[in-house]
């Protein structure tokens, strides 16, 4: 049977959640960075944000720290998630 070619998105297991709604830059990055520092390599952090500049800045800045950004997605009208794996 041929494969349909439809990709099934794997649910990434999240090890830690960080709700930073209401927070602005650069606190959003500082909190995310501190959270990642407490995690083991391979673990995944999910950050929820509602400050638009942070949605760009946090993934970029975590990448600069050497972490692997898995996903940046809008959740609803105001909220976004940034999912990052610690290297």
């Amino acid at each position: 049977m041929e494969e349909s070619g439809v990709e099934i998105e794997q649910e990434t297991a999240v090890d830690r959640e960080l709700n930073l709604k209401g927070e602005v830059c650069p606190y959003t990055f500082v909190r995310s960075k501190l959270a990642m520092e407490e995690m083991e390599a391979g673990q995944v952090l999910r950050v929820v944000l509602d400050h638009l500049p942070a949605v760009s800045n946090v993934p970029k800045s975590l990448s600069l720290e050497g972490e692997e950004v898995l996903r940046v997605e809008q959740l609803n009208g105001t909220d976004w998630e940034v999912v990052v794996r610690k290297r």
Partner: protein
Amino acid sequence: MTGRPGERKTMSFTEEQIGRYDRQILLPDMGREGQERIRNGRVLCVGAGGLGSPVAYYLVAAGVGVLGLMEMDVVDISNLQRQLLHYTDDIGRPKVESAAEKLQALNPEVRLETYATRLTSENALEIIGRYDVVVDACDNFPTRYLVNDACVFLRKPLVHGSVLRFEGQVTTFVPGEGPCYRCVYPTPPAPGEIPSCQEAGVLGAVPGLVGSLQAVEALKLVAGAGESLVGRLVVYDALEMSFRDFVLRRDPDCAVCGDNPTIRELIDYEQFCSVAH
């Protein structure tokens, strides 16, 4: 420096003023005349944060006649690590109010003119026009370019300072004597260049040092003492503890101060990063 005919006050000081400023009056390159110029001086400090705190403190302590202070922000807890004008109990308060309280307590003789507003193309010429010297103690590019361009148009000396992480810069721009800010940095960073959050990091004493250098340069300009930093960019590297000196030259093709300027009106650039707010 101030040199407005008819407005010169007499060179008499009260006993209290002599007591307050005796350390400056004693200085060979200052003396009574220098102190008189400082007393007649009108300086605008744009920004009451990390750079503006030492600038304002030292100008007021030295007895500048009028200090204009412009800052639209409210005190936030993250400011207290470096913005020495503001204390824990000031959190939530407009910075100009918090600043004015400390500055006036330090020196009740100085007249403070506060502006709890943002500098824009609409107000810049009018506000800057009221002062003899301007100090750029702001933290964002739109304001920096507005201040520069307005100072070029109005021919006001401008003491520039900036900090990025562990590095600081200071120089003085005097229209007609050297470069302006745009000779060095012709345009602001493009909107697409989102800075990293790491760039918001700073050790409090670094802007403390840079702002203090700015205060010294502003006071020298007002008092007419020493040599200004026109044509020199001093770069401080805190981590390696070094000061380097770079030559800055006026660019004859500069868009605002060059031989054929193309910028003849003030520009309101868009603020694209919330880190500097």
